Each structure stands twice: as structure tokens, then as C-alpha cells.
């Protein structure tokens, strides 16, 4: 599924929620369901330190597509991580590099991706794009 289609799907899902606690409960659920990152990647090397919460991110590349696994010590943040992975996983590296992640704003989580929130998510998105750029540059020929 295309990156935009997945985003639209998420927006659709969130439109069903009437209040914030429902949205957070869903994010908590997504956080719990996020496939675990391989423990060998849960090290400082893969840590994106957000001051308030931590995010670990690992990226793989196969046949032009990106594969991400991640974790966070804060469960709501982990739920947002799960959404980002759902959108970006198995996408072409070139798609991710230029991705416009409009769904974050549409589902009301914009402030969580503001540079001042310091939860690691802004850096996570940056890292996902950088990994994609690096793999793309390496394999474009």
C-alpha cells in the first residue's frame, strides 16, 4: 500500500474516536502490539535520546525497500512510533526520503512531533529519512 494510502487509513481510524482518552488508549494498544526490536539493537548506538523519553530505531534495506524496527520507554510515544513504522515500513527508500507525514497533524498529534517536545519522535523521523537517503544513495546504481 502506498504511503499516502496508509496515512489516510490511519486518519480514518482515528476519526472514530470521540475523546482524547480513546485516542490515547488506542495508541497504548498499538504501543503494546509493536513487534519487539531485536535486543541487540537496543543499545546506545541505536538510541535516539529525546531528553524526556527514549526511542531506539533500527533500519534495514532489502530490494529497494526499508524495514524498520523500534522501541520506546514511554508507551504513548511507542504507540506513535508504531504508527510511523506502519506508514514507513516496506516503502521505497526514495518515497520515505520525501515523505510528507500529514497524518500526524490530522489525528491531532502534531505537538508530539514538534522540536520542543523532546520525546525523540522528531529525531526518529529525521533518522528514518536519513537511513533511507543513505541506502538510496548507496544502491541507486
Amino acid at each position, binding site marked *: 500500500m502506498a504511503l499516502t494510502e496508509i496515512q489516510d487509513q490511519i486518519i480514518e481510524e482515528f476519526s472514530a474516536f470521540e475523546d482524547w482518552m480513546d485516542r490515547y488508549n488506542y495508541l497504548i494498544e498499538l504501543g503494546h502490539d509493536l513487534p519487539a526490536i531485536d535486543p541487540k539493537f537496543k543499545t546506545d548506538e541505536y538510541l535516539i535520546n529525546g531528553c524526556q523519553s527514549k526511542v531506539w530505531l533500527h533500519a534495514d534495506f532489502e530490494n529497494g525497500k526499508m524495514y524498520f524496527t523500534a522501541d520506546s520507554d*514511554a508507551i504513548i510515544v511507542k504507540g506513535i512510533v508504531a504508527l510511523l513504522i506502519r506508514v514507513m515500513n516496506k516503502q521505497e527508500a526514495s518515497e520515505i526520503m520525501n515523505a510528507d507525514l500529514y497524518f500526524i497533524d490530522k489525528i491531532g498529534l502534531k505537538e508530539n512531533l514538534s522540536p520542543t517536545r523532546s520525546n525523540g519522535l522528531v529525531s526518529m523521523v529525521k533518522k528514518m529519512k536519513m537511513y533511507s537517503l543513505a541506502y538510496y544513495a548507496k544502491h541507486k546504481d
Partner: protein
Amino acid sequence: MPMIPDKPTVSIDIDLIRRNFPVLQTQVHGKPLVYLDNGATTQKPRVVIDKLNELYESKNSSIHRGVHFLSEQMTGEYEHARETVRNFINARNTNEIVFTSGATGSINTVAFSFGEKYVKEGDEIIVSEMEHHSNIVPWQMLCARKKAKLKVIPFDENGELIQNEYKLLFNDKTRLVAITQVSNSLGTVNPVKEMIRFAHDHHVPVLIDGAQAVQHSSVDVQDLDCDFYVFSGHKVFGPTGIGVLYGKEIMLDALPPYQGGGDMVDCVKFEKTTYNELPFKFEAGTMNYTGAIGLGTALEYIGSIGFDAITQHEKSLCAYTHNKLKEIEGLDIYGNAKEKISIFSFLIQGLHPLDTGMILDKMGIALRTGTHCTQPVMDHFQITGTIRASMAFYNSFGDADRLIEGLKKAVSMLK
């Protein structure tokens, strides 16, 4: 902790006071705001907001320079604010009151000017383990500049400074002690008067960071006998961007200026410039005169309520909140000093502070999560951060109840 009353005794009319603060009437995410982030900044009473409007609408003019009516009027108000601050902390005279950009600006001023004059290679500055970063980093910068050393007073498991350790830090290289009166992350009220006396016995001057103290109880700099005292306007119900540096006149007089510019000079020639007298020597450039006047208005407002009433209300609110927090299973409070104000840093086992803060936010409850600019305090407890609820005199017992309700909700969602 003091004995906890079963029923709160209200000493001042909180409902009436709350009506003085427009922000407290607002809603956040559709819920009446519960503002418990007073350690970060306090809300402004109507009189302060009105004063700022009045200044900009009908009185605005640069101070200390003009020959015209508006300038003289504004200068008069600015100097009146200085007198209000003097009275608020009971300084001897207004030469001892310097307006700055905030407590941080005040500390940086002293770190530079005092450092230039008195600190040389191998000298030592004493701070404490519970200082806000603003009372650590300027001294580290001074130490780097002068090849001096920073010595640190540790605190114990209750969050009280270990006085014996403090005394052991003194030697003939000690040049200054810089400590906070009230900890912004632990709520501890330090015995600064005794600590100042000890330092003075060793002929060492003391700077007190009063940023978290002046909004909770009355301060008398002459009684404390501190050499410098600093605080921020925005944490004491005044405007942001204004702060105070108090210094004993003899001390300030001896120090070189921090920044150069307009108003701080006496006579400028390319060969040599002479500086203005106190307090103007430390007020370079066009000052934040509206901020200073707004701060004066805020201090007058506090005076109209009185610290007897404020302290009494906060004490019972502190005890009540402490009691209620302890009812939550797995909740650990960091900072259990015998003398403390209504700042609560805590963690709930199994809950990440950021998750908790995010849920409370959507319930209309504003508090802070993280390290609160005191990373060494977090390192002491080997934690990465806490949830902090910090109260002011306009907080009600109802606010405490809403906090508890919010925390219980967070527990039910996150556990």
C-alpha cells in the same frame, strides 16, 4: 512532613483570589484548567495585565533620557518599582536593587563581575547538588575562564543538604557560595541563614537563588545577611523577561560592570569611559521598564494579600496534597525534607512520566515532566525524570483533588 489535617482549613478566600487571575478561568481540552506548573512560571493577576496595557496604551516612553513628560512619568514609575522591590525583600536602599532579565541574568551578572574581580586560578566556588542549571552553568563557565574549581554540597535521601559536608568544603581557596533557597525539583527549603552565617565566619560571600522562594514566603535580605539575592519576575506573578539582582551596596560598588552600553555610563570618550553609579552601572541599554513596573505591581498585589495568609494556605494545601498523593499505590515522592514548600516531584511505579503528563494534559491539568533543569538531582536518584506538580497560593484543594483523579486515570490506562 507536618501533621496532615483531615479537613482543609481555608485561611484565605481562594475563590475570590482565583477570580483575579484570568487564565485560571479558562478551559483546556474542554476542561477547566488546573494549573500546577508554577515552578516553571506563575500566572498573572488582572492588575498586572491591566498595568502593562496602561503603560503601552498611554504612557510608553524610554526612561532616564527624555526631557519630556512621558519619559519623566515612565522614569518615575520605573524607579517606584525599584522602591517596591526594595521594600519587598527589605534591602537597605534602592542602590542595592538592579533590574535584570531574570534570575538567570542576575546569576550570570554576578558570575562575570564577581569572577572578574575576585576569582583567580585555583580558587573554588561552592554550589549544591540541587541547584537549577542556571545556578550551575554560569559558575562552570567562570571556572573554565579562570581555571577555578566548582565544589558541590551533596544532599541526602530526603533531599536535605548535608550540612557537615558543606562545612568540609571550605578552605582558603573558597571565594563564593551560590545556593538556592528553595529547590525547584525537590521543594526543599534550605537553612540558608545558617549557611550564610557559616560562610561569613570564613569570610566567604554568599549568593542566594530565590527564584522558587519569593512567591511562597517573605524574604528579608538584611535578616538573611546574604551578599547577593536573585529572583525572576515571572515566577512571582509578574511579567516575563524581568528579574532582580540584589547585592549589598559595598559589594556591588566594588564590582566591574557586566555589560556595556547606554545608561550604564557616566562619560564616554574614546580614551576612557567612566561608569554610572549604582544601580545604573549594571543596567546597560534600554531596560525592560514595562516589565519592571509590572513586577512592582505584582509585588504590591502580593502585599495586599499578605504572606501570613499565603503561607498558611500553602502549608495546609501542601500537607493535604502530600497526604492524597501517598494514597496512590506505588507513588514515590522525591524530596521529603522537613522544611518544604508545595512542589511535588514523584514517579508512579510502572508509569513513564511523559505518558502520565500527556494524559493529565488532556484532562486539563498542566504540570511538568522531565528533569526540571536539575539533571544532577535526577542523577542522584538514578532516574531520568519525574512528574512535578508545583503549586502557588491560588491553587485550591479542588486542584489537588483533580490532580489525584487525573493520576488515578493515568494509572488505570497505563498499568
